């Protein structure tokens, strides 16, 4: 078999080679050699992007599972599998990212034995560990179906309601707790971003980004894998996204008002420029787009709105993790190229694994994988469970 060298494959190879070189520097020369982190800036790009943004970008999993299995929004059924796949890959890669950022990653399991229940970091760690396991179980039926192995699917179906509730519970906890992490630095984080409402904002942004990412990846998959775009799905998601953005916006300004910052945020300053960028991308552009009925019905506009939303909230989290500390520290932090290259490598791995999974597993509801009857004939042992997992897999 001959592998064609397309543009993106070349990009992928370059990113991987540079990433592997940087990984070598990371593990054989140390964190000081691979990054621009210092005693003044102990958290850099990897915490800001790989961790804070990574977990947010994977939020589509619990949002879609919640919408379809908890609230019975049948219309969205076809996007659950890709959303769960994205979430599962997202969390696995988040853990991979952690292995680069932790100073002593080989002791990561210490979380399980030296527990400190007062630590937000401990809570995040435990939730992420358990939620990744939950996601594994939500994802595994894809594999079992691909190899036509029915027994374990039945077992997973039996515990599916538990998985759903547990998954959403854990997501609520750690999505918000990522924000709580920053509550411990009231004197360091810039007041534009430090607010007791941080956990709520982190959860709110996870919901909005979960919806936006699902729009993004549905559209993207349709392009790349040549699938039919399901407009009703996108329209539903777009409507929900508009509501989520408005709620986020109102809460955000309610908070600025509450803390007497409404004037301050519009005065030009270094932080204000970044805040404006964030607000324009997160709220102004996507809300403006989605306010037009025509745009809400157009895949292109929905796609664009989702991209703005995602970029906006990424800016938001990078502002919290990086920009918000620069005034306190007194100098800028610019990641070293090796830091970027490891982040890029992790992103590239995500795209590649997604493509491989789509190629070999019944992720999208279409008969194009050579996988024979998708267990449609499976007797419905428990009507409420078999519906979600399998009932629509074949349509």
């Amino acid at each position, binding site marked *: 078999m001959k592998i064609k060298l397309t543009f993106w494959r070349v990009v992928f190879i370059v990113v991987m080679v540079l990433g592997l070189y940087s990984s070598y520097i990371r593990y054989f020369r*140390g*964190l000081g050699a691979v990054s621009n982190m210092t005693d003044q800036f102990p958290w850099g790009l990897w915490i800001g992007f790989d961790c804070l943004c990574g977990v947010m970008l994977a939020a589509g999993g619990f949002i879609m599972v919640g919408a379809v299995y908890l609230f019975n929004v049948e219309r969205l059924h076809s996007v659950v599998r890709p959303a769960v796949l994205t979430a599962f890959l997202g969390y696995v890669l988040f853990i991979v990212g952690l292995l680069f950022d932790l100073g002593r990653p080989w*002791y990561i399991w210490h979380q399980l034995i030296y527990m400190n229940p007062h630590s937000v970091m401990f809570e995040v760690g435990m939730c992420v560990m358990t939620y990744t396991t939950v996601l594994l179980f939500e994802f595994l039926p894809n594999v079992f179906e691909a190899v036509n192995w029915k027994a374990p699917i039945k077992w997973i179906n039996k515990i599916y309601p538990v998985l759903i509730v547990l998954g959403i519970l854990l997501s609520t906890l750690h999505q918000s707790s990522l924000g709580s992490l920053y509550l411990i*630095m009231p*004197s360091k984080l810039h007041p534009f971003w430090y607010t007791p409402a941080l956990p709520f904002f982190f959860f709110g942004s996870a919901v909005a980004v979960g919806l936006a990412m699902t729009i993004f990846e549905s559209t993207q998959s349709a392009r790349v894998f040549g699938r039919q775009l399901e407009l009703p799905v996108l329209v539903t998601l777009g409507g929900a996204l508009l509501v989520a953005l408005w709620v986020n916006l109102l809460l955000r300004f309610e908070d600025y008002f509450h803390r007497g910052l409404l004037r301050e945020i519009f005065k030009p300053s270094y932080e204000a420029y970044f805040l404006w960028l964030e607000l324009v991308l997160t709220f102004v552009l996507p809300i403006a787009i989605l306010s037009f009925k025509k745009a809400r019905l157009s895949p292109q506009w929905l796609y664009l709105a989702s991209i703005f939303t995602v970029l906006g909230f990424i800016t938001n989290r990078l502002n919290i993790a990086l920009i918000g500390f620069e005034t306190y520290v007194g100098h800028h932090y610019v990641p070293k190229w090796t830091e970027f290259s490891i982040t890029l490598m992790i992103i590239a791995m995500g795209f590649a694994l997604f493509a491989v999974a789509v190629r070999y597993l019944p992720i999208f509801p279409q008969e194009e994988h050579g996988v024979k009857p998708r267990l449609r004939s499976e007797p419905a042992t428990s009507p409420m469970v078999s519906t979600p997992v399998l009932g629509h897999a074949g349509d």
Partner: protein
Amino acid sequence: MSKALLYDATMCIGCKQCEAACAQQNNLPYDDTVAAETVQSAHKYTVVKTMDDKFMRRLCMHCEKPACASACPVGAFHKTAAGPVVYDVWKCIGCRYCMVACAFNQPKYEWQSLNPRVRKCIMCPDRIAAGKQTACAEICPTGATKFGERDDLIREAKDRIRKDPKYIDRIYGLNEVGGTSVLIISDENPEQYGYPASAKIGDTPIPEYTGRVMDRIPDFVPVWTLVLGGIYWVSHRRDEVAAAEAEEEKQIEGGK
């Protein structure tokens, strides 16, 4: 009953013997190059800063309610009954949350190491356990760094401030972030030497900021589980009922 250090900047002559004694106590290199360094680092736990003819010492404040201890996911830091905030290196996973959590920026990192540790003044816990003073207090030729019971030192600091008008009437560390085991008095404000402003860090113990949220989790988990489970039950009950009714109907028809 906990030990503390009182640093009186007006008595300090900037001899840096505390730096050297600290390095020796902790097996760290100390030579002219290190002595010339004016910032704390993984190999310099304490530093005497010089401004004209005045001095100010920096070291871990050993908070009564330490942020590092509450932040650490594996509990590698804890405040001992004797006063020091100590670090169990074997637990540490290297997340560096302690470093971002500390209001005084005291934990430093071994950035060049392949098995890096967090480094900071640990207030000579072994010496204290053996009934001795900290290395820095013992060596101090003028008594600028004084070791003793926290309550006694506070009394003495107030005494000195009352008797001599050159002092600014404040003890830095008395109430900052809920009180610290290092107390500073001076004829200048410690803020001029890089200490965080009292007004900025406040008197609230840092762990309370996250504690307010963490304390709610034990209540939140069962309530939210019930809500989610309830929604699931309600939204699937309809299907179940419909299925059961269909089944019933079938049976009735079959019985006819």
